[in-house]
């Protein structure tokens, strides 16, 4: 028995050491999270400057690249802020980002990328880990105990070392992503000209798999969305889910059951999704550099269709 007790003590020591090592580098800026921080800081600033009820475009990179805030503003005569960010941040962080800028009377247009953001299973990805550790550690307190344990366990050693090296800190002002690429609404700019290698990159991207087995009602993502909806109701904020702009692929035409179930799941928690996702898959000529990122032309077409959809739904 002495062996097993000692073994257990060793395991506890290892876990405590790991936690201490992580705590030692919390808040240290890293290059891997710097541009996400820059973009979100700029977007918070835009949102804060709006005093009247506004429309918040909420989602990942398809929102950032795929919606034209100015067109939406003109269509509904309301200020708009685009809170989409292309960093692979996961559902809880995306929702929290929008939550932190929303006020009573606001409307949140929710465009979570499928399948990934609707299939969040509590396992953090590298981007979320890096951003949370460097810039938003208090976010961990909003997670369930199991999510916190998973988060701490999943932090890669290389990220901890990067934290101790303090590789970030200075705003990033060049490259394809960052605060220098967004306009006064928070929309991505400069996507008119599409380099050939970007198109080649899109062609090489793996097709997404829409499997209804991944939409089980017991999944943690629905609890997150339910909580989000409850918070919105309590604070006089309206949420409308809208389709996501995405590259059209032949195989996706067989995904109607997946999207019908997705809409039902949202319906069950009181979030209405307008339109049919399958109708918002576009040809490659409308894309910029990934299967979710529309180019200038694509963005205008998609935004126009979303506006029509919203008007028909009496937003």
């Amino acid at each position, binding site marked *: 028995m*002495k*062996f097993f007790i000692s073994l257990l003590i060793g395991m506890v020591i*290892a876990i405590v050491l790991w936690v201490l090592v992580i705590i030692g580098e919390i808040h240290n800026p890293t290059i891997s999270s710097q541009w996400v921080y820059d973009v979100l800081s700029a977007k918070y600033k835009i949102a804060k400057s709006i005093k009247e009820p506004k429309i918040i475009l909420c989602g990942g990179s398809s929102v950032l690249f795929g919606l034209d805030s100015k067109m939406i503003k003109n269509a509904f005569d309301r200020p708009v802020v685009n809170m989409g960010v292309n960093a692979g941040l996961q559902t809880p962080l995306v929702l929290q980002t929008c939550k932190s800028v929303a006020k009573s009377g606001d409307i949140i247009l929710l465009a979570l990328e499928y399948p990934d953001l609707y299939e969040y299973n509590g396992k953090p990805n590298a981007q979320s880990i890096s951003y949370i550790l460097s810039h938003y550690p208090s976010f961990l307190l909003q997670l369930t105990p199991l999510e916190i344990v998973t988060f701490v366990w999943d932090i890669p*050693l290389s990220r901890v070392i990067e934290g101790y090296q303090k590789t970030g800190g200075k705003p990033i002002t060049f490259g394809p992503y960052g605060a220098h690429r967004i306009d006064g609404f928070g929309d991505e700019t400069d996507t008119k000209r599409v380099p050939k290698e970007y198109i080649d990159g899109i062609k090489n991207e793996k097709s997404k798999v829409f499997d209804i087995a991944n939409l089980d009602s017991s999944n943690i993502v629905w609890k997150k969305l339910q909580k989000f909806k409850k918070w919105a109701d309590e604070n006089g904020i309206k949420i409308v889910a809208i389709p996501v702009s995405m590259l059209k692929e032949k195989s996706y035409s067989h995904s109607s059951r997946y999207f019908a179930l997705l809409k039902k799941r949202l319906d069950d928690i009181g979030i209405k999704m307008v339109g049919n996702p399958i109708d918002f898959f576009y040809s490659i000529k409308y894309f910029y550099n990934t299967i979710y990122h529309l180019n200038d032309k694509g963005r205008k077409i998609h935004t126009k269709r979303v506006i029509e959809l919203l008007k028909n739904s009496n937003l």
Partner: protein
Amino acid sequence: MLFNSYEFIFIFLPIVLSGFLLLRYFGYHKLIPSWLLVSSAFFYGDFKLWHLPLLIAMILINYYFALKIERSSYKKRYFFIAIALDISILAWFKYASLLPILDSIKPDTLPLGISFYTFQIIAYLADIYQGRAKRLKLSDFALFILFFPQLIAGPIVHYAQMVPQFDSLAKGKTEIYFSNGLALFIIGLGKKVLLADTLSPFVDRAFGVVASGGSLDMISAWEGIIAYSMQIYFDFSAYSEMAIGLALMFGLRLPINFNSPYKAIDIRDFWRRWHITLSTFIRDYLYIPLGGSKKGDINTIKNLIVVMTIAGAWHGSGWTFVTWGFLHGVWLGLSHIKSKFIHISLPKGINIFVTFIGITLLWVLFRSNSLDTALLYYKFLFTGDITDTHLLAKDYIVSFVLLTTLFIVWFLPNAKEATRYIQDPNQELPQPSVAIAILCGILLIASLKALSEGASHSFIYFMF
């Protein structure tokens, strides 16, 4: 299913162990070998199902020959037919690719563990032939070959080392065996996951540069080969320790396969410490039958070169392995001459260092995919440029791990010493110390954490 995978650690092993302990607890002792056989077959079949029928066929055919060797008056004939058949099957899978004429029918892959289980079968047949082993029940013979901890990469076990212990599957002190087994398994897991697998991408990079015709500076070349020297030791010895640990959990003691080989003071000492069960096999079934060291110095040297060249070829069909084995044979021969005629003694530390450097230099042949690559690598080792932009210059994790491995091999006790493992089943097994248990706890968490960050890497010796 690899030992260093979550599915093995959290699903397969707990199920097999629970079944084993339940059978023991409820007194169904006769069912234990069957349970272990079924589990082992599942374990092996999980890698590639089609390898399993071949292994089963090998077991059945050799069991038939073992019966014939024991009972028939044509012992010798049956013995040599069986050996020829086993060697032919092994040679077919390992060397058919050397003959272009066989291109259309040669096997695509090498059945996992075939080099190891073939040698174990041959050792058993030789023991039966020489009257050192008794005839076994088919189920015991099958378990002797198929027992999953040592099936794929050894240790190569003799009849006398394992079969008499089959009785202890049903008795023995569970807690001491289990705690010792767990300690050895965890140490092996840590060596593999934390050390060998961290060095692996760096070694691939260094050798990859040379294999693709690029050039390496001298420091990078030395970093690469020292890293490989550590990788192969920590990889292979890790497997052996995990195998010994797993067997212990079931009450069986397997022979150790490594005994601090990089503390060897000369090449003969190295081969007494490195892959001990293969060295023993080669000594008993090749070197001694050839005459060993009893027919004069010239014959001794010749025998050493022949058996080591065969040992090299056992690893693979490439000329790199043959040359590696041949050079080890030559070195052993030179060492034999030195021990007879030159009596200069150097400080132990210098002997250890010189032996390590020699062994490490020969690993270049073992790791390279062709003789040309190996020669080019040697060129960079001795005539490459010296720059401060060498491969490890900013790779802090690999640098730290490499230094750690060097410290471990030269200054720390090995796993057997640390856990106080005794391979003789007739001697009492002591409990591992509290310090080792705590260290194992830390290692277990660190290893599981490392495993969660990436895929499980196969063991180097699985390709042999």
